[in-house]
């Protein structure tokens, strides 16, 4: 696993009065080429380890402090119950949902929509057209659906929003399922580090 680059995009300082607690700034990130390969062959059910990511640490993690985890097109949250034996254990209180709207227009978390993973369903639904992507059987391409923003509660109760931009290495403008390396995520996210704060601006 390698990161080509991680950029700190913006810092936002919110006013601090005498008695107000000092709020941490929002963290906006772009993550490129996060590889989440299945070890099984084409046409086979995905296999192998999930790649676990922490919004706060801005990197992949091995321990229980992960917020979301990737393998091929599946995205897990660290909250609820595992659906299959090869999924990582859920030790946190993470949850998520798919919001319809441009990334910048999602300004706060609708807590009523947050769900955790369960044995049968995922917080981020799997399958073409159900969650964050479409799959075209002809071109065999996985394409992130425009206007889908993934909203998360992290493993320790903070919030983040995320937009997946590409499923192929280096996010090519016109990926080719046969020549481009897939299962390789590019996404941006905004992390709200302050406990109890559900807004993103």
């Amino acid at each position, binding site marked *: 696993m390698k990161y080509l680059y991680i950029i700190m995009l913006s810092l936002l300082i919110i006013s601090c009065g005498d008695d107000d607690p000092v709020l941490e700034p929002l963290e906006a990130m772009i993550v490129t080429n996060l590889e989440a390969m299945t070890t099984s062959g084409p046409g086979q059910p995905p296999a192998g380890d999930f790649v676990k990511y922490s919004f706060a640490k801005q990197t992949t993690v091995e321990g229980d402090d992960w917020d979301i985890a990737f393998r091929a097109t599946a995205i897990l949250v660290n909250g609820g119950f595992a659906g299959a034996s090869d999924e990582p254990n859920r030790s946190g209180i993470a949850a998520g949902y798919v919001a319809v709207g*441009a990334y910048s*227009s999602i300004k706060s978390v609708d807590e009523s929509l947050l769900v955790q993973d369960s044995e049968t369903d995922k917080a981020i639904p799997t399958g073409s057209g159900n969650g964050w992507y479409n799959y075209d059987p002809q071109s065999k391409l996985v394409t992130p*659906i425009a*206007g889908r923003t993934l909203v998360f509660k992290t493993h320790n109760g903070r919030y983040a929003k995320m937009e997946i*931009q590409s499923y192929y290495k280096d996010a090519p403008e016109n990926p080719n399922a046969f020549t481009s390396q897939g299962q390789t995520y590019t996404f941006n996210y905004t992390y709200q580090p302050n406990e109890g704060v559900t807004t993103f601006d």
Partner: protein
Amino acid sequence: MRSKYISKLILLCAIIIISNINVFSQDEDSIKTIEMKEVMVSANKTEKPFVELTVPAKIISKEEIESSGHSRLDEIISEQVGVVTVPGFGGSEGIQLQGIDPEYTLILIDGLPIIGRVAGILDLSRISLGSVERIEIVKGASSSLYGSEALGGVVNIITNKAKNEGLSKKIYYQYSSYNTQDLLADISYRKKQFAIYGNINRYSSDGYDLVEGDGQNTVEAFQNLTGGVGISYDLDKLGNFDFNYKFFEEDRDGTIFITSPGIENKSETNENNISLKYQNKLSKSVNLNIDIYNTNYINKEQQIISSGILNKNNFNQSLNRLDVRLKHSTSTGSYYTIGFGFDNETLERTNITVKPEHKSQFLYFQYDWNTNEKFNLVSGIRYDKHNEYSSQLSPKVSFKYDFSEDLNLKGSFGYGYKTPDFRQLYLNFSNSTSGYIVLGASVIDEVISELQNKNELSFYNELFTTDLTAENSNSYNLGLQYYLSPDIPIEINLFRNNIYNLIETNIVGRKNNGQTIYSYSNVNKAYTQGIEIQGNWNPIKKISIKGGYQLLYAKDIDAIEEFKSGTVFARDKVTKQSFELKSNDYFGLYGRSRHQLNIGVNYYMNQNKDNLNLRLNFRGKFALIDSNNNSFLDKYDSFIKAHLLGNISYNKFLTKNISLQLYIKNLLGYKDVENLLNNPGRIYSLKVTFKN
């Protein structure tokens, strides 16, 4: 197959030889070209002078066909205003009338329907222009006379029927790029009440390849034979009998299956049409017409490897029709038509387990009210009873009002419908390589419950309704025709088609192994509307110019709503961020150009009718697919660029009977190898015609 071809080719040779021997003495004076007023039959199922029609229509004359250089129907028809050919499945070409998809235009030969819409579109390149007398196009819904399929309009190909007394012959040979060869022999003989006619046409091509290195040609090599014989006998009081047999057969090296080295793909088509038309003037005012028709279309596709047949597809469709009509003319110049009959249609097809049979009976009535010199009102209604669907009642009203000799107004309202086809009802298709299943509406319940019992279903949309109803439309036309001078007519027509219950393919479920299940349902509402302007002009006697323009807006009503509600997005190609699309970002339906312009110039060089014929066809940008993955066509999608196609032909009469034609199709060499696979670029042709 080969031996069949050989026997047909012998027949062809025989016709050529016979037609070259002057068995019948030929009297020069007896061959009179009768200057007849152009008439049209398709608009009213009975002859009516073209200039008196109440609906928007168009006639492509034999002369226009012959001097154009074209050899197949799709080519000539795409040069008409408001008629656009669109590439369909597997290289086929259908037509769009008033922005309505090819599935919804009825195609007739001599008033009788052609079947064999394997994937919905009827491939017009199947139809040879060799023995065509004229082509009639009626725009706007015409189900009041024709029933199903006549939503966008009707195209009727009228073939040569030995109009002239004596022996008429036409033989031509055309050689074009890609070793495309077109050979025709057409012969007809009329002696008073008796006429016999026959023709045979062989058309073959090596095909072409636009994309190198993919192991297959874009269009594979093919050869086909089109032919027919007919006898017509007028027994005076006993009436006129016209018996006609037509066939089409084709061998093609390509199928819908994927090809790769070592795999041979063979497609074989056989089509037969037999008709008997009976006509009798029962009294001074009553005319009887009876059409009996049988047609059969068989297509077999095979994917062959060394060890045997890997895959095959069979398609076998039959139609029997009876159409009886009585026309009663009144003393005031009005007349009414009553017609009735039935259709029986069957299909056997790979991936359809049942053997469906569709039976329908119909009854129609039309009144042509013509008592006032200035005003003509035509109103009609048709009732179709069908064994599978709810019955249909299709009205139509149209009028023409002459303000003066120079100015008239035409208007029409009509209902059109198309019953769901066999595929939409009975298909049970599983594509193991791409991993999807398509189920027709009549078989889905059974298949789904079977999958449920076997516990193979991971998800199924219980709300999915399986009743399909006919797709239908209300079509409106309003047109003005103005004669700038007696030979410069200008016509403006406004049209609007409201289309309901369009059938779409939808995802209805998923199997445990991940296979997506698709089925059909009536979901969409759409409209097409626009303006059509056309005119002719002869600036000098030797030059005739015709031109036309169509402005078209074709939109899905649900899509308009979605854009309004702000739930449609696109992704910026550079920043990769998605953004919301606004209402005016919606472009419309696929395959539609907003602008279409046609200009034709014909220059007659001398008395011999030698001529130079240039046609320019402009098509505005359009798109066939959604390229930015939001399932709508918006202005951020990739479009097929606006382009100009030019055709030029030069016709030279060497003698009175022998002519030479040089033809360059797609003069400017426009190509789009990624999107327009039916266009190989510039094509050169040379043709020799013998005709008397």
